[in-house]
């Protein structure tokens, strides 16, 4: 199933450029009294994609989602759905449906009645409603539970019903608020792929809000990183992880080793940085062709790209000696914390491809090194 979803995802990516914009957010700002919640956000969500707003709590991502749903009014800016200005449309007139974090299933109604609620508001005929409810139940594999009340369902079942209810009206845009927030870890991974499967089956455009980067990277085609009401970076999961555009994004997504450096040499095809933390200078296989006067740069290196050996690496660049400071064995991989001569501690992931391999242990002298295209230069 995961494989199928992945394959379909790739098709998505290939045709994403051709897809037209469904939702545009234009310079939206939101103040709660004096507090700035969303700061001049401009975003475009394309037809058919799963778009994730990722950020810590209080980053304004939920407020932005609630403005899309119509529960909050922007202080400034516009929201357009298929070119139509919906900024001040009330929620019950928007062709946008939301799946709530708490699921918000109506406790006094059965699963069927919950699914039919939105359709009844549209004043559809009884046959159409019954037919649509049956299709929705089938879509989320809940046919057997049609007559149960929400309190008779488990967490995963509630989530399926909530998803089916928000899809029943065939919205142009689906909003997911922390879709896996109420599930335990194991069920979460299972449901993430299943939800993506259902969404791609239906072909609905989807904006989700989450604070869980794994969830965003598993489910979304594109991710926007939000911090203090501001969008830091928008891109595919690979872009966000491999090419973060700021220190905040690099630190927020995964682990990272950061080195403060000074530019020694900046050419078109390479550059070198000097840092006090490392024995050797840093060589990067591309230049920073911006002509900034700023000489100090930040070098970001992911721990899994930081290699560790007992032998001294060849070459004049991209290595340092160190001592194993701490080891965290996590089963699939081991995290080594290596103390560099100047006292800085770097992380380095080693995949445990061999059982009980002979590995460096505490206080062993080691070398860390990396390839010239492994790291990213950030303007701090």
């Amino acid at each position, binding site marked *: 199933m995961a494989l199928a979803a992945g394959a379909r995802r790739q098709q998505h990516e290939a045709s994403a450029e051709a897809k037209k914009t469904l939702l545009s957010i234009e310079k939206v700002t939101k103040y709660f009294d004096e507090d700035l919640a969303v700061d001049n956000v401009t975003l475009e969500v394309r037809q058919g994609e799963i778009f994730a707003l990722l950020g810590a709590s209080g980053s304004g991502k939920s407020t932005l989602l609630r403005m899309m749903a119509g529960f909050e009014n922007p202080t400034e800016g516009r929201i357009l759905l298929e070119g139509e200005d919906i900024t001040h449309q009330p929620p019950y007139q928007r062709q946008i449906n939301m799946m*709530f*974090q708490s699921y918000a299933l109506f406790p006094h109604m059965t699963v069927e009645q919950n699914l039919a609620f*939105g359709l009844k508001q549209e004043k559809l005929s009884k046959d159409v409603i019954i037919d649509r409810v049956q299709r929705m139940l089938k879509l989320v594999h809940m046919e057997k539970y049609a007559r149960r009340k929400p*309190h008779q369902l488990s967490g995963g079942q509630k989530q399926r019903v909530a998803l089916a209810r928000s899809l029943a009206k065939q919205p142009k845009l689906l909003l997911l608020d922390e879709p896996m927030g109420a599930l335990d870890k194991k069920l979460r991974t299972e449901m993430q792929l299943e939800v993506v499967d259902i969404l791609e089956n239906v072909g609905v455009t989807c904006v989700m809000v989450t604070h869980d980067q794994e969830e965003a990277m598993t489910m979304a085609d594109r991710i926007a990183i939000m911090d203090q009401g501001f969008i830091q970076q928008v891109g595919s999961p690979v872009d966000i992880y491999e090419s973060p555009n700021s220190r905040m994004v690099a630190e927020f997504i995964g682990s990272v080793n950061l080195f403060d450096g000074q530019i020694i040499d900046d050419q078109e095809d390479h550059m070198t940085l000097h840092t006090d933390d490392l024995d050797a200078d840093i060589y990067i296989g591309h230049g920073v062709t911006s002509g900034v006067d700023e000489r100090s740069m930040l070098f970001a290196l992911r721990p899994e790209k930081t290699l560790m050996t007992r032998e001294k690496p060849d070459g004049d660049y991209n290595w340092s000696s160190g001592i194993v400071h701490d080891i965290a064995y996590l089963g699939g991989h081991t995290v080594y914390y290596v103390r560099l001569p100047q006292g800085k501690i770097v992380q380095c992931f080693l995949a445990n491809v061999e059982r009980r391999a002979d590995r460096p242990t505490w206080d062993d002298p080691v070398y860390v090194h990396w390839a010239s295209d492994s790291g990213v230069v950030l303007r701090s």
Partner: protein
Amino acid sequence: MRSGRFSLSVTIFWLGIFFLYGPMLMLIIYSFNASRMVQVWAGWSTRWYGELFQDQQLMGAVGRSLQIAFYSASTAVVIGMLASIVMIRFTRFRGRTLFSGMITAPLVMPDVIIGISMLLLFVAMAQSLGWPAQRGMLTIWIAHTTFCVAYSTVVISSRLREMDQSLEEAALDLGATPIKAFFLVTLPVISPAIISAWLLSFTLSLDDVVIASFVTGPGATTLPIEVFSQVKLGVTPKINALATIIIGVVSIVAFSSWLLFRKIDQHNRAAARMAAQG
């Protein structure tokens, strides 16, 4: 030592039970007393029950009290619900704290003060507006509604505060207008609180003697006032019979609601087991 402590707790338990229910038991026994004198036992009889139902004045007071309690409770619940919505859902408006403080003030206000201020108000209104021309059931209804609103607001607002607000948002999101969302989602969800607020208000109104005696008028004697005035002339066995009937009705209602809740609870547990099994 162990058995000694055990018997001590048993003794205290029975003392407590006697303290709570002894007087009622006495009252029930004496309601079957054949004698006119309350203190003198003269054998079993149901004579006073027959006389009770023939006492037009007392039966009239029962009917009046039930009527007033019904109207007061219904009005208080509607007003209490509106007040709760304003307090809980409209988060920011000027004087909100003052409003929520004032609406619950009658909870801590002595009945005498409510009664006397109500009386003064009605007298002043009758003099200046000519309405209400006469004090009676209408004025008792208004007075009872006033203090019942305080209780029902407390009950309903606490339920409304607990209610997940995203339920209402979900209804709006699915295309229901705010009014429809209220009637289709909010009202059913808070209905248990509305029922308990109504029952509480009903009981309080039925029970009240102080406020009612201030604002009552000719021909509007409620049951507590009637009982109170009859007892002043000496306790008659008829009152005992009436009290026994009331105790019986209350016990039956309490017991059947306990049965009902137990049944719902069992149902829910079975459902939870079913959900756990998938």
